[in-house]
């Protein structure tokens, strides 16, 4: 299915599943256009032909016609039957049951960020999620607090992340690329900034990436970054954030082990650069009001060393 749309959209698929949905959608668009054309066409005809003219007497008072009613019921019924069939067929293709398969990725929605773990490996990442191309992947979708919804239009169906249950999605990505997505179930104050970035890459690149993510943070630290590391470990940061290889082991906030390798921060809100990071650490509630990270009011110096440390976590 070639691109139907000039803008990135649900009509520019990059997975086998999204492709199936686009075919179905295009049949529907055609059918709907025909129905709409019939309604508007007959309306325009009636409006022009039967508008009252001066001197009109009461028109013939006819009240119905069984044959026409038959068509009114019959033709839409046919249409419904056809689309019923197409729908069931596509559903079975796009989202069959999971049948004890081990998931390739376990995705968990948190207020207001995404966590992705890759079972069988140590890798845990946040917000920017890499996936291999050309393989049928099973995604598990969970929620840590309220309902969220995983949606990357180019990759096909969305799926709710519901606390207390595990949902699944099948995805076979067909084209490498970076795909935008967003949380699509209202989940609170910062629902708007709970965006998703999926990086689809070749199997080899993907394996390399996972291998890098599996490693603990082990950067070469400048003096100020070392001061930052020490400061970080003294402060409560570690109760919410994990940095593998250190004592920090929290799970409330995003994993920071490889924080500096993310292009954006705060689930797509802003570019990941030292300035933005400084702003965030100075006053999180100003940068992303309602985000679940408190304001600590640290002196400027402490913030600077923190920034140096976090920016080194490649």
């Amino acid at each position, binding site marked *: 299915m070639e691109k139907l*749309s000039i803008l*990135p*959209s*649900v009509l520019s698929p990059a997975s086998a599943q999204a492709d*199936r*949905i686009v075919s179905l*959608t295009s049949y*529907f668009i055609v059918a*709907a256009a025909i129905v*709409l054309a019939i*309604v508007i066409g007959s*309306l325009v005809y*009636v*409006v022009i032909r*039967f508008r*009252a*003219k001066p001197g*009109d007497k009461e028109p013939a*008072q006819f*009240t*119905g*016609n069984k*044959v*026409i*009613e038959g068509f*009114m*019921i019959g033709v839409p019924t046919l249409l419904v039957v056809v689309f*019923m069939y197409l*729908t*069931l067929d596509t*559903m079975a293709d*796009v*989202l069959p*049951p999971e049948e004890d398969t081990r998931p390739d990725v376990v995705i968990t929605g948190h207020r207001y960020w995404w966590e992705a773990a890759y079972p069988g490996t140590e890798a845990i990442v946040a917000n920017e999620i890499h996936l291999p191309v050309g393989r049928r992947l099973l995604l598990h*979708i969970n929620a840590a607090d*309220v*309902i969220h*919804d995983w*949606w990357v*239009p180019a990759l*096909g*169906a*969305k*799926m*709710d992340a519901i606390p*207390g*249950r595990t*949902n*699944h999605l099948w995805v076979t990505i067909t084209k490498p690329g970076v795909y935008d*997505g*967003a949380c*699509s179930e*209202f*989940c*609170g104050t*910062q*629902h*708007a900034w709970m965006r998703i970035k999926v990086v689809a890459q070749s199997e080899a690149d993907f394996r390399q990436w996972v291998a890098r993510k599996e490693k603990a943070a082990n950067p070469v630290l400048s003096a100020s970054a070392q001061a930052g590391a020490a400061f970080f470990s003294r402060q409560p940061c570690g109760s919410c954030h994990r940095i593998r290889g250190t004592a920090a082991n929290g799970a409330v906030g995003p994993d920071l082990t490889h924080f500096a390798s993310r292009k954006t921060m705060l689930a*797509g809100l802003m570019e990941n650069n030292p300035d933005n990071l400084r702003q965030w650490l100075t006053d999180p509630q100003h940068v992303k009001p*309602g985000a679940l990270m408190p304001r600590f009011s640290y002196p400027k110096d402490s913030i600077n060393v923190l920034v140096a440390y976090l920016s080194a976590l490649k």
Partner: protein
Amino acid sequence: MITDVEIPEPLAPLPGATVNTNQGLLQWISSVDHKQIGIMYLLMTLFYLLVGGLLALLMRVQLMVPTNTFLAPDSYNQLFTMHGTTMIFFVLTPAILGLAVYMVPLQIGANEMAFPRLNAFSFWISFFGGFLLYFSFLAGGAPDAGWFSYAPLNQTQYSASPGIDYYCIGLLLSGIGTVGTAANLVVTIITLRTPSMHYRYLPVFVWMVLIDAFLILAAFPSLNAALVMLLVDRQLDGHFFNTDAGGSALLWQHLFWLFGHPEVYIVVLPPFGVLSEVFQVYSRKPIFGYPFVVGSGIAISLLAFGVWVHHMFATGMGNTVNSFFAVSSMLIGIPTGVKVFNWLGTMYGGSIRFTTGMLFATAFLVEFTIGGLSGISFAIVPIDWQLTDTYYVVAHLHYVFLGGSLFGLFAGFFYWVPKISGRLYSETLGKWFFWLFVIGFNLTFFVQHILGIIGMPRRVYTYPNLAGYSSLNLISSLGAFLMGVSMLLFLYLLYDTLKRGKRAGDNPWDGYTFEWLASSPPQLKNFTLLPPVYSFRPLHDLNHPKIGDYQKPDEEKYGTKDVD
């Protein structure tokens, strides 16, 4: 041939029949007259339409440009919650109740509702429900979890302000009022029809109200139960929907949509009835396929209870469940199509008068079909998997709510305002209002289909500047302001009609049903004498004895004659 008959009245003597109508506000507050209560319902509707619309305009200002900071995120979230809740529970629902309470007794030839005091009670309890909902703004924050307030976001640990408690109590009160009025309407229609008005002679509007009232009686308890459970959770620390303590998030969704889906038909069936009257009278022909129009209403109301899971296609319930609800949702398109085509059939061969009311009815056919078709696209589950919870849904719901219900109500407003106020509105103003409103409406909401398709989720207080987002949102916001302007014009039109409108006379449109026999506005006692009923257009029979339906056999009255 035509003789007069006695008018049925409620068992108890008419309360208030001896009260002078010119005693000001107090008289309105204490009134049990169905017309005054109907008018109060409609005034409440207008008030909340302006308030809810104002909230929408604020939202559109915030969304006009990407990463706007006009509103804080929490304020935005309160706004769309209050906007949706207001529009559904305090605009559309009281509007249909108000029209029904005003018109049903008149159309069936009765002088009152069966229970006038219950009628007043129901109105006032709904009224105070709305009051309480808005009081939350002063009491620490309006509800902020969306009009369907999903669990567990509606729990105290995620929404600590008392807003959702006000939401519960406000909706419970208005829900009780709505059920009361519905029961009252059913009893009125069953027992107070003029004796010769068989069910097969009921005006279509009355039929739709009757069906609608049963829908209300069956759907609202489910909402009330859900709200009660939510209150138990929030006030008594219960665990129905508290997923942190074993509660269920999906239970709320099932209970809510078991109400919520029927609710959308609750607010659209009476407008369907209104339109059926409007199409007939302005086309100067009886409705095409009366039994099919009525029957499809019944079919819709039955199907309405079997489709609720289509709001939950993305919750991972499995393909078996989803298939069932996909099929039932698509099936609803069939009876709805029957209505659309029958209205076209009513216009066909007529002599159509394009008054403002008829313009709204005509535009309805287009807008509602667009909204209905986008509804069918959701019933096709894989499309819903892509588009649920995006602006495409926002587009759908406004096309059916405005293009469907509200256009129907406006058609009814212009059709009946001469009856209710006794005065004619200015067609010039009416047409200006119509065009501004329709153009604004399509500008605002058509582009939202595209926004959904290019990936914009709903309920976001702001959005990144991705390709297409800013221009489409700007168009949408400008359209909204155009609608705002048109609403100001509407207010002026209302003022102009009441102050300067020419006397309408009893039957300015040469209408077909009994309300046009009463004086304009009707006296406290609607009728003293009525002719007997031989068809669903009794007044047409009376005024046009040569071409009246009364002399025809039934199969001709209904167009059910076998065709050779």
